[in-house]
């Protein structure tokens, strides 16, 4: 599989990263280099091998249903680039 410039544009869009046009071709080359190297995984027959779903043999922790958090609208918005009355503000979103 080879990554062309359109693919770079598509995934940059998916990842919401503005990649300058001048960087598109070099990025395609870099990604191709990496993906060609990764191709070696094709040598391994992993048919029937289960995917790793948890690194260590542990059980998922469950929490009691209690209200133990919240009530911190100030702390929540103090780092915001733009906020008002405890709302986060973004450019108008058209639905």
């Amino acid at each position, binding site marked *: 599989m080879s990554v062309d410039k359109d693919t770079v544009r598509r995934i940059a869009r998916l990842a919401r990263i503005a990649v300058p046009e001048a960087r598109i071709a070099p990025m395609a080359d870099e990604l191709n280099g990496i993906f060609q190297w990764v191709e070696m995984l094709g040598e391994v027959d992993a048919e029937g091998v289960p995917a790793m*779903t948890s690194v260590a043999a542990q059980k*998922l922790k469950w*929490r009691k249903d209690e209200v133990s958090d*919240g009530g911190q609208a100030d702390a929540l*918005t103090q780092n915001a680039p733009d906020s008002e009355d405890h709302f986060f503000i*973004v450019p108008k979103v058209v*639905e």
Partner: protein
Amino acid sequence: MSAPAKAKTIKGETGDWEIVIGMEVHAQVLSESKLFSGASTRFGADPNSQVSFVDAGFPGMLPVINEKCVEQAVRTGLGLKAQINMSSIFDRKNYFYPDLPQGYQISQYKNPIVGEGEVLIDLKDGETIPVGIERLHLEQDAGKSLHDQHPDSSYVDLNRSGIALMEIVTKPHMRSSEEAAAFLKKLRAIVRYLGTCDGNMDEGSMRADVNVSVCKIGGYEEFRRTGSFKTLGTRCEIKNVNSMRFIAQAVEYEARRQVDLIEGGGTVVQETRLFDSRAGETRSMRSKEEAHDYRYFPDPDLLPLELDPAWVEAIRASLPELPDEKKARFMALGLSAYDAAVLVSERETADYFEAMLAAGAEAKAAVNWLNNEYFGRLNKAGLAINDGPVSAKANADIVAMVAEGLISGKIAKDVLDIEWETRTGDPRAAIVEARGMKQVTDTGAIDAAIEAVIAANPDKVEEVKAKPKLAGWFVGQVMKQTGGKANPAAVNAALKVRLNLPDEG
């Protein structure tokens, strides 16, 4: 009693078409705190006041699952007669949106907690139809963007972000807008019986996406026979239809649109559409159509959700009686399928009815009394059954007193009116005894009252002899004399004898 769905056909230029409907319902899980954080789920709080740093996607924050939400999903799955998956996986659904702070929604994609099940829907003619459930999974709700606060900005409130939702997906087993509405109504009843969702559509606790397609006659039967979707039409998903009424409108409009489109030489494009309730039409949501690629993968912050079979069995053992079972039991008491379905459609109504039975009311009389008298008064006052002023025991007492012949049907209505006002809770003792409304059939007391009225009104006696129709005046006077507690039929009979009135008159 269940039969396969009957197609409602649409007439087109080229022949008849059938509607096929499937639904995805988002039901908010009833829990104190959110799916993966300890922030409150209460509705209507100040902006961002019920948000943990987990819900707001702050750096280094991690999800920890709320056991109650798991329990509620399992309980709902059991109520939908569905398979409970003892191991399920949380995945991340990746996309960018201002009300999605993590940049992904934690959901369940390939391995949901609940698999296939079935819901019986009740139609108006008393018929029931099975609708297959494809799956139920747990996921996080998003926050809310307000677009009307400022001309150039949207305001983001994350109070809802992270609240647990159950997404319930049906098979395409509904064939008309009535069936779609009936499904939602039944699902709502089930989750409310189970106590897993409050079903409040106004507050968005239940939201439905409706998938609509049309096919030529026979296409659906072929699909049911083969399981292949090839004989069904291309579907459109109508987003966030948030009332029963709108579902019917949206389905009708969308099916007609698709038929007209196909017959006009066009093709239906699989897309997301929005129902505009003001215009009564659906329209394409182009902004949502931008090549979505959600890049699902198992959330590495969470491990597989493993259930203990004994725990699931304990939930199963604690399930309440569900609408279908309750309906069957009510029908066994002599109620019609329709009456039973109406009573069980709201758990509170069924509970109220059962409380009346427990207080001694007879089933048929009780349902008639509720249908004919009490429900009307509640509707007029805009009150829910649990907010009404007359207790189930009070209504049961009134019904019982009528059955015992202690009061007439007319007086029963008066008693209900008085009880509505005074809320004594005990009409038998408090109203009838205290206000002397116990019906008097004792002819001695009636005769005495008649004599008193005659003695006081000799002129009227003459008049009534000439005009027997004036007897009604005497009845009224006697009733007044007895404080309204005389049995009107007994008064009538006694007057006829005393005044020598003809039988007809």
